[in-house]
């Protein structure tokens, strides 16, 4: 399953973002940040404790099931009063959740996380970015491995000169995408696909910010 992968901001940055706001309501998310252990029940409780120790008043906490869903009425009926007592909502979800809450609740929201990428859990506790949703999918020619995402430079014609022992020039623990693609295509007896020159990519498959409407019949 794909997840929004997040990492908590340094407490100094969170403190800076909360400057002048003494009363805080903390919101976690039961989906992605629970899975990555950045905004689940435990982390929300720890954050509330940490902020208390730093002199903030915690007016309440909750972990909503899916912060990027529209939850206005549910949240407000249960926690509206305590949220209203707060100067800010500190949101421990990804940026989708923060923005959804910001658009629904008329209060200052502060993200506690940096949203890193949309990733896949490949092994317990290990998340990898495998698709950047570029809008012009090339994996039909690369054995199902995306070089746009998996190659640090997003190269589509083969490896750069920085690859070393099958690893990436920026990280000796990261597999070189093009070594993986080569091995895969060789196994599949489809190396001709790698030998074909690929023209420069269309980098604007869907101009940013992306927008999609289901076409009418």
């Amino acid at each position, binding site marked *: 399953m794909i997840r929004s992968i997040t990492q908590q901001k340094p407490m100094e940055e969170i403190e800076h973002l909360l400057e002048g706001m003494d009363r805080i309501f903390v919101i976690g998310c039961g989906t992605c940040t629970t899975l990555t252990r950045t905004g689940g029940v435990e982390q929300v409780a720890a954050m509330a404790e940490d902020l208390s120790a730093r002199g903030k008043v915690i007016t309440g906490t909750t972990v909503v099931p899916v912060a990027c869903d529209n939850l206005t009425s549910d949240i407000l009926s249960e926690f509206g009063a305590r949220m209203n007592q707060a100067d800010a909502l500190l949101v421990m979800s990804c940026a989708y959740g923060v923005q959804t809450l910001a658009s629904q609740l008329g209060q200052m929201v502060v993200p506690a996380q940096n949203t890193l990428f949309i990733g896949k859990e490949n092994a317990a506790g290990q998340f990898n970015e495998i698709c950047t949703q570029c809008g012009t999918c090339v994996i039909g020619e690369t054995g199902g491995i995306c070089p746009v995402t998996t190659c*640090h430079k997003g190269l589509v*014609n*083969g490896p750069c000169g*920085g690859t*070393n022992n*099958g690893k990436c020039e*920026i990280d000796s623990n990261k597999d070189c995408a093009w070594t993986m693609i080569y091995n895969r295509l060789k196994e599949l007896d489809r190396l001709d696909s790698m030998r074909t*020159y690929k023209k*420069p990519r269309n*980098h604007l498959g869907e101009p940013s910010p992306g927008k999609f409407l289901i076409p009418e019949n």
Partner: protein
Amino acid sequence: MPSAFKKALDSGKFVVTSEVAPSKGTNLEKMAHHVELLKDKVDAMNVTDHQSSVMRFPSLGGALLVKEKGGEPILQMTCRDRNRLALQADLMFAASRGINNVLCLTGDSVMLGDHKQAKAVFDLDSSQLVAAVRTMERGKDMAGNDLDGGVRFCAGAIVTPEANPIEPQLIKFEKKIEAGAEFIQTQAVYDIDNFKKFMDYARQFDVKILAGVILLTSAGMARFMNKNVAGVMVPQNLIDEMAAAPKGGALKKGIEITGRMIAQIKDEKICDGVHIMAIGKEEVVPDIMSAAGLL
């Protein structure tokens, strides 16, 4: 008119190129000194483009300086910092000023340089940049629009014969030639027997190959490259030879080794020439050439 470098490549002579690095800042004295020293000794000088992703005076400006001093510049262009508009614009500017050699490179990651948080571009890759040069030579830009006044370049690219695994590199090498590369510079080669094997394969293509040679300045530097520089493999016997040099004599030994390798490559006609990289010690390039019997 083909460039002087292109003529040298086509003449069948053993071609020698070297490298000059633009300065960190606008004081170009050191680079100008290196250009003066080398311009009449080598067939062309590569001007590096933010080498190792460290921000420097632009390669285009450096290539102009080489031209102004009467040398033959090879403009290095990486795809790291410019998109296809900027790359094409720079190619036109270069051509308009008589810079007619270009070496097309993907470029190191910005994460390896001194501006680690910069936005990397990589709109094109090295083979696509070679193809773009050829498209512009036909009077069209990459979008298919007519150019009022075209360009002409002797265009080259890079290969790493010591890469592991080698096969993906070779596929890319073939694509660069297919895209129109006329010459190929190699990453540093130290193991001549390995390099000969690469040349046995490369000889089937209509492309000139210049063997990259990097001056060894100490045994420690050789070990450092083995550990940290992708695609560079210094054999143990050369490291031992460097280590055995008398105190203060390592550079002299490095010059001797590099000269010896060049002489072997030339005498045995292993490839079409050499590209000498002295990395900060450009003033000894003439000594290397003397040691190789080229001066």
